[in-house]
């Protein structure tokens, strides 16, 4: 009976030890790789940031369905930065220090990426800036920051080349006085001169300026052939509304960011037709880059909306990070950084090749135009889905 009791005791101990050790082992094996980032659930970056969030979530789902990374599942920790740089700084500090994330992803937009990258650089965390293109990002000598986008100064090359080829002569440039928009405008100014165009106006405004009427009155006096608006979506909508109210129009109008969203036409109505926009990528099946077609399809199923280049770029960033981890089999930030700096590949948005400072070199943006309610690629010529159209304008 005693022996029986001993046996039962020993058996219980053995089972207990087995369960304990299993629990310890199993608890060590399934620890997910934590990846942190902020998204703007409110504020002026809400719309593009929603695309970024959906792209991150899609990748998380896909990578986990494929067995995760290094045998560990991937868990995204996404926090709401409210489109605020201060919140962004605080949240990234929190993600790295408190949440102990293994990797960080970038927030949306150059201004927030500028702040977020300061935190990641301080903590020597690799950050692939998937939706920032400001030139200033690369002028700080940061080591752990990698760019996905072509830089902002190249956004308007396609549009300017087109209008020069079609005989338009004068250009006006209006831009918000913020990091990305200013860089894009400066680039446009530089390229306009290269294309022998006449820049008749280059004017900036503060983002808090809520009225564009004085700018439009000035434009009416100058009456340029083409107008470039380097602005964020909300300002773009207000500017277009003001143009409509003041019955002002130009032969060619190019706007950053807002026109790449599928619901652009629904929001701006009649003003939509003929508007050009630079885009890092276009959800068009004629885009020849591998994986592009599958991404469009998967994203639509996952998010219920057509992806923009913001989504495609951030998804590509995740894929590059995934490849780096898979190839190097480590989460060591320096190893991963070296791998990414040496990459010369083609992602779903095009070529990926960065300089030793992490600045994107291989990728160039395309130019789209809204024609009959559809986005058509009009530049580069080799990818053209339709010839560009120019508005007929009655000069006063």
């Amino acid at each position, binding site marked *: 009976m005693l022996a029986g009791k001993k046996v039962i005791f020993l058996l219980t101990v053995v089972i207990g030890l087995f369960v304990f050790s299993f629990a310890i082992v199993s608890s060590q094996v399934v620890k997910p790789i934590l990846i942190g980032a902020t998204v703007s659930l409110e504020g002026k970056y809400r719309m593009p940031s929603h695309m970024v969030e959906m792209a991150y979530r899609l990748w998380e789902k896909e990578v986990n369905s494929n067995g995760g990374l290094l045998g560990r599942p991937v868990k995204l920790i996404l926090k709401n930065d409210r489109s605020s740089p201060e919140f962004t700084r605080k949240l990234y500090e929190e993600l790295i220090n408190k949440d102990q994330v293994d990797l960080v992803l970038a927030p949306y937009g150059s201004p927030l990426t500028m702040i977020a990258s300061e935190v990641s650089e301080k903590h020597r965390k690799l950050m692939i800036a998937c939706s920032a293109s400001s030139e200033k990002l690369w002028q700080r000598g940061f080591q752990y920051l990698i760019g996905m986008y072509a830089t902002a100064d*190249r956004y308007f*090359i396609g549009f*300017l*080349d087109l209008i*020069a*080829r*079609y*005989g338009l002569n004068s250009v006006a440039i209006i831009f918000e006085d913020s990091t990305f928009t200013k860089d894009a405008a400066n680039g446009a100014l530089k390229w306009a001169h*290269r*294309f*022998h*165009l006449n820049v008749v106006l280059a004017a900036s405004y503060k983002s808090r300026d809520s009225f564009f009427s004085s700018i439009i009155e000035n434009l009416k006096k100058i009456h340029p052939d083409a107008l470039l608006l380097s602005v964020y979506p909300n300002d773009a909508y207000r500017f277009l509304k003001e143009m409509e109210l003041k019955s002002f129009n130009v032969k060619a109008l190019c706007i950053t960011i807002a026109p790449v969203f599928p619901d652009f036409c629904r929001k701006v109505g009649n003003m939509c037709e003929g508007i050009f926009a630079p885009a890092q990528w276009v959800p068009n099946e004629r885009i020849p880059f591998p994986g592009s077609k599958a991404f469009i399809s998967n994203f639509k199923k996952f998010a219920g909306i057509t992806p923009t280049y913001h989504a495609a770029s951030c998804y590509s960033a995740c894929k590059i990070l995934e490849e780096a981890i898979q190839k190097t089999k480590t989460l060591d930030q320096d190893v991963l950084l070296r791998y990414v700096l040496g990459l010369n590949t083609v992602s779903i948005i095009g*070529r990926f090749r960065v300089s030793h400072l992490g600045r994107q*070199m*291989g990728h*160039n943006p395309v130019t789209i135009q809204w024609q009959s309610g559809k986005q058509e690629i009009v530049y*580069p*010529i*080799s990818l053209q889905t339709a010839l560009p159209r120019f508005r007929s304008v009655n000069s006063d």
Partner: protein
Amino acid sequence: MNRLTKRNKKRYIPLVFWVMLPILVVGIVFSIIVIQYWCPTLLHEAKERVESDLKLASKLGMRVCDYKFDLILESHLEDDINALRALRKESLEEIKAISENFHKIYMLVVDGRGNAIASSFSSLARARFAVHFPRRLSQIESYILDGLSVKAHVRYFPLWDWYIVSFIKEEDFKAPLLFIKYTVYGGTFGIFAITLLTFILTYRHYISRPLMFLVEASHEISEGRFVTIPVSPKNELGLVIDAFNHMVNNLEQHRKELYSALKALRKNEQFLHAILESIQDGIVVFGDDLRVKYVNSVVKDWFGEKAFLVGKTCDEILSRYGGDIAECELIKSTLKTGIMRTAVVKGLYGSSVEWFEISTYPIKETLSGKVVGVVEVKKDITDARRVSDALRESEERYRTLVENSFDAIIMLSMKRKIISCNQAFLEMFGYARDEVIGKSIRLIHPSDESFYNLGKIHYPLLIQKGSQRLEWEFVRKDGTRIDTEIVSSLVRDSNGNNVGVVAIIRDITERKRYEERISQLQKMEAVGRLAGGIAHDFNNLLQVIIGYVQILLADKSHDDPDFDSLKIIEDSAYRGKELVQQILAFSRSTEARFEPVNLNEIVEHTVRMLERTMSKAINIKLCLSENVSPIKANSVQIEQIIINLAVNAQDAMPDGGEIVVSTTEKILDESEIERLSPEANPGRYVVLCISDTGKGIDKSIINRIFEPFFTTKDVGKGSGLGLAVVYGIVRSHGGFITCESEVGEGTTFTIYFPVSEQLISKDKMNNFSDVKLTLRRGKPKRRGTILLVDDEEMIRILGKEVLERVGYDVLLAKSGEEAVEIYKNVYRNVDLIILDLNMPGMGGIPCLKVLRDINPSANIVIASGYIDRENVKKAMSFGARTYLYKPFSMDHLLEIVDELLT
């Protein structure tokens, strides 16, 4: 053959032409279709090929640049000057090399300033162009590059500001097009021409040549030379030629037989022709078909040489040349009956021959007696006919002239019996024609004495002068006399013997009466002028009487035994004034003044006057309605109406009778106005009715009684103006007049005057009875100096006494000249001038002008016993303040003087 062809060149179109025509048309249409549809297609294809090569070349040039640009962007070489230079150089070389792949297409790169920086066409490699190339992609255009005409396609590469031009020389561009055009045109027309030529040669040898032989032989035969055809081809035409030769041989035999028979016939025909041509009347021979077979030269002369009558029917000739339809009927009748006919018919239109006498003779077959034609013999009788027509027309013309004359025309024998007369004579004297023809002219003389006197006075002068004019009185059948003017002429026969007298008698009764009326009017005008002349002097006399009576009355009370006597003198003087007014109004020497008056008062006053002047056998009865409304009228003219109608009534009652004068007032509605006088307006009227029991007016003339100069009175007894004047006065008063009369019963004239809305002025009502008391009061005393100018001494004395009596100082002047002299000296002291207008010497108006010249503000009152409107107007225009019409009352004088001096 040649001779024949030449002879017939203008007369036929070769058969080959008709055969060739559709072939030619089809060939040309086919060629045009080929050229129209094939040539442009080929040309378009060739052009498209060259143009697409040009576009492709420029596109390849652009591709080179785009490729380099992609490289720059991917490698971020935009700021690498060395790399860019190398890339540009490479691009230029590659662009130049493009032309090696195209035939005769060259490449050219031009910078933004027009400098060529590279070209596969060596002479343009360093050229500078003035051409402005389009930046926007355009179509292929023509350019002149450094003197070289080219077709070019241009693309712009903005990064390097390059114009990439692919071009081909104009001549090289056109060369293939011209080649295609010439090949198509030449080939089409060449094939067409060869086909045509082959057909013509074949046709000429096998068809045309034998046919021309046949034609030539036919012409030879027609000219009497019987020839056969020497050739005979081995085809259908050969058979025709054989048959033709056989026919020619037979014909030659028959011709010889006919020739001898014809010769005999021609000789006979010539003899007959000579006979017919020798006849001077027209001969026309018709066949049994009624067509002309022969006409002789006389007929040809009538119808003209160009008239082709032979072969035409009589009706056809008639419709073309005119004439008488009876002529054809006659010919047809003779042809049908075989009986000879004769008639006179009309000639031809537009011909000198107007009348023919025609005879138609049947032509009968010798054996059967059947009528086979008609010989018509036409004789020109125009001249004889023309003479007889002229005589008849002349006679008819004179007959019409006589019958239509308004004057009576008669023809008398030398024994003064009426041979003939016109209708006017019968109407003038009231006889029927059978009552006068053959009767003595004594018929229309009022007496034997008149008949003998006229013969005694008139005939010797008539026989001496040949014609005579005089006035004579005749009598109508009904016994009424008629004044006439007679113009008579002698009628002589061809030997110069007097055979009768033609007399034209004109009724001048009316003219005579009119002349008498004019004479009466002239008398009346003379009376009027006389009345005007004496009116002034007469009024001056009345003025003196009235003036002094009023001075005397001013000092008398009503109880004074002399007061009534003086009043009667004053009234009589005023009646004298009215009498003068009436005389002047009757003679139209004064203007009528219309004012509200009481018709009853005028009637009573006038009737009292008539009772004194009219026959005692006439009883005048008054039936005046009380309280009739006033009418706006001129009382003198109303009096004239009553007088004229009363005088007429008296004339209508030579044995006496009754005149009833009545007044009443009526309201006439529209229906009554419509019945009485449609021109008048409905409303209230005062009605004056004057009726008599005289002989009345005949219905036939009652509508004419108001016509001027219409009268039924004997000559010298009435002017014919009485009722016309009445009518005129009534119309001028806005009224109307009606007349009702029955012969033997009497006449009633009813006059309607519209009622006046104005009341009768008191002055008028009291004109004769009110004595003003101004003179008698004599106070307060007036102050002022008055110059009284009048040629009548009594007037001057009267005026001075009256004016001084009330306190004025009075200066007197007896003429205009004296007045001027006085006024020159004392005009500053003279306050008023009373100036007589009718003065001898200077006269009133000139004196007035001089006085106003001396003192433009002179107060002048003009006065006269005879003032017409024109003189008053003139005086007022020269500055007179007002006027006084003599005789005036002293109160009236003082009223005016006081008013002007206040």
